[in-house]
Structures are given as C-alpha cells and as structure tokens.
C-alpha cells in the first residue's frame, strides 16, 4: 500500500508527459498527413506521390525518425485519453487494470511495430 501510494503519482506524471507530447505531435502533424493520404490523394484532388518518391523520402534517417515520433507519441496520447474515456464515460472503474494494460500495451506494441518497419524498410 505504501509502495503504491509513493510510486503512483510519479508514474502518472510521466504518463501525462507522454500524453501531452503526443497531443502536440498529433495536433501539428496528423491533420496534414491524414488530409493528404486519406482524402486529397485518394480523391484525386492532388497527384499521388509515387512509390519511388516515398521510398526516396524514407531513405533519410530523419524521415524515419519523424515517422517513428509521429506513430509512437500519439499512441501514448491515445492511451491516456482513451483509458479515461472508458473510466469516466462508461463508468467501468472496476476494469481499471485491464483497460490500463490494453491501452498502454497497445501503444507499446504500435511503437515496436513502427520501429521494426522503419528499421527494416
């Protein structure tokens, strides 16, 4: 009980930091990315970049770092917000541990997948 009460606040602060950083990354980067790849290119409003062009961009380590940050931090942002949505929105506090594991496990898994893909491309 003592241990829990002393470690929990610092954990929460760290997770909140990830949430906050992810919120900034999601706000700045995702709208343009989603607009281009999800709407403008498929609908033909703008010319689709070729496979070769994208691979040439991915050749740069900076672009890979950019994509890793763009995938990872927003997932931790999601994990924080989504778990509180489930806690408060649906009032399922008795499932706290399961929700916590699902959210942060998902964020970690996504980060590992992104790192693996970007490393091996």
């Amino acid at each position: 009980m003592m241990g829990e009460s002393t470690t929990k606040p610092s954990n929460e602060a760290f997770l909140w930091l990830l949430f906050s950083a992810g919120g900034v990354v999601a706000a700045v980067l995702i709208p343009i990315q989603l607009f281009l790849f999800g709407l403008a290119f498929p609908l033909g409003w703008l010319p689709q970049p070729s496979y070769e062009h994208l691979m040439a961009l991915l050749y740069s380590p900076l672009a890979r770092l950019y994509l890793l940050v763009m995938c990872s931090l927003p997932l931790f942002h999601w994990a924080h917000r989504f778990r509180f949505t489930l806690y408060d929105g649906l009032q399922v506090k008795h499932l706290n541990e399961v929700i916590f594991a699902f959210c942060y496990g998902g964020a970690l898994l996504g980060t590992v997948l992104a790192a693996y893909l970007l490393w091996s491309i």
Partner: protein
Amino acid sequence: MTDEVMTNQGVTDQAARSEFHPRWYRERVSTWWWLGEWHYLKFILRELTSISVAWFVVLTLFQLRALWHGPETYARFTGRLQSPAMIALNLIAFCFVMFHAITWFNLAPRAMPVRMGGKRVPEFLVAAPNYVLWIAVSVFVGWLLLRTP
C-alpha cells in the same frame, strides 16, 4: 425474523455500533450523462478524438508495411484507400483530428496565461504561435510529398 426486521429498521441509531457501515442512498449516474449538455458533450467528443488519432497511426503502420512489401502491395493499399467506406472513415477521422488540434492549440493560453506590462495578453495572441507553427509544418510536409523529384 422479527429480530432481523427490528435491527434493519434501527440502522440509523445503531450505525455507530454496527459491524457493517450503512449504505447511504446514492443515485446512480447514467452512462449517458454527457449527452445532456453541450459542455459535457464537447468534453466527451474531445476525449473521443483519441480514437481517430489511433486510427491514423494504424493506417500509417499498414502504409509502411505496404511500402515495405513493394510497389504492387503499395498500389493495392492506395487502391483500398479510394473505396467510399475508407473515404468516409477518413473524413470523420479528419474532422475529429482537426477538433483535437484546434482545442489543443486554444488550450495553451489557458494553461499558461502570459502577462505583459501588468496586463494579460489576449488569448488569441498566445495561441497564435501554435497556429503559425501548425501551418508552417503542414506546408513543409505537403511540399516534401508533392514536389516533383
């Protein structure tokens, strides 16, 4: 039986001595408590933007996987994005992500009120740099993707 009824009825005066704490009457809050008022609805909508954020990341991971597999797989991936269902999904996700971005940028002056010469700087001036950065980054990303090599 009568004894039991007696003890149950006497719960208020026996509360201090009782082994079990009496359960006070509490009205259960409905699961849909956030539908009643715009303020609450906005809060929940903002919380739900996180689903769109996660959706975008999943989409990006699939895109990277398709790129990793080669040009044919990537062509199939972009073809799938053209289906009406995907367009609709991405349109909804885009609206939510814009909602997140705008509410997030507007939060900055609330979280960090700036004072100058004893006066509080108007909120839109504190939020302005966020928007400038947002537009600059968006233009740069667009330029990288659209320029003809």
